[in-house]
């Protein structure tokens, strides 16, 4: 292999956060270290209701492989999940169920609304569909598309990874977060 080809193959290891590194040691702020750990080990809860759920199966498949981003382990119970991926239409009958699942998730938790139906009710502006899940739970990232291509879902996950990576440890106790919870009247 010629010389320049060697450098192109970059090892797919998560880059280290910026910090002071010297002879045999590396120091960084504690927050960044925790962020790095959280970022690369998000356990998704696939709240797959309709067509976006099948597209998520393709994303989990070998071709697009969500496992490359550390979200290999799907957990269907909210107790062991950090990331709620709401995929597909959420009807008004499903609203309380979605809220219950969100409340019972362990902190820190993030939410992706995958697809137009989850983000804003999509093409179904009807009496029976919840017009966007942010009426019931706070959402961090909205992924457009109906259904979004697997690359878009992975892009949404990478946005969440950035959020999780540089989130301050005190965010969940901060006043804005408390107001957000009050707005959705979750205590």
């Amino acid at each position, binding site marked *: 292999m010629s010389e320049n080809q060697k450098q192109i193959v970059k090892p797919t290891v998560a880059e280290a956060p910026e910090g002071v590194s010297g002879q045999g040691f590396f120091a960084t702020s504690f927050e960044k270290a925790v962020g790095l750990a959280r970022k690369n080990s998000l356990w998704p809860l696939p709240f797959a209701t309709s067509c976006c759920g099948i597209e998520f199966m393709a994303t989990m498949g070998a071709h697009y492989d969500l496992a490359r981003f550390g979200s290999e382990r799907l957990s269907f119970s909210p107790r062991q999940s950090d990331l709620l991926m709401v995929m597909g239409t959420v009807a008004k009958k499903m609203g309380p169920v979605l809220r219950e699942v969100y*409340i019972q998730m362990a*902190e820190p938790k993030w939410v992706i609304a995958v697809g137009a139906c989850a983000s804003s009710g999509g093409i179904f502006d009807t009496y029976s569909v919840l017009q966007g899940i942010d009426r019931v739970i706070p959402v961090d990232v909205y992924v457009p598309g109906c259904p979004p291509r697997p690359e878009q879902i992975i892009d949404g996950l990478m946005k969440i990874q950035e959020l999780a990576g540089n989130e301050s440890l005190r965010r969940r106790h901060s006043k804005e977060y408390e107001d957000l919870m009050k707005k959705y009247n979750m205590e």
Partner: protein
Amino acid sequence: MPQDYIPVLIQTFVVLGFVITTMILTHFLGPKRSSSAKLENFECGIEGMGNARSPFSVKYFLIAILFVLFDVEVIFMYPWAVNFKEMGKEGFLDMFLFMILLLAGFIYVILKGALKWDKR
């Protein structure tokens, strides 16, 4: 000589220390938000119906105990497998006797029908 056990002590101290500190540390570090709705048991998003404390048949407990029993038997085989060569023939015979006894127990369990699972 008691001094020779210092490394073992240090090892157990480090292991226990690591386990206990990480468990305690995560409680202080991780954000916690406990609410009444959160503490209910999770029933696929619906508020729970029926209680989990209802009686159920004994054969589940039976299966669990049988599993533990034969699992412990396998654990005994590890040291035997490690120094299989040094123990030579009589080691093999002792282990053989141990396994025959447990096999007799296993056959008894089958004939007693304890493993018959799909009987109402």
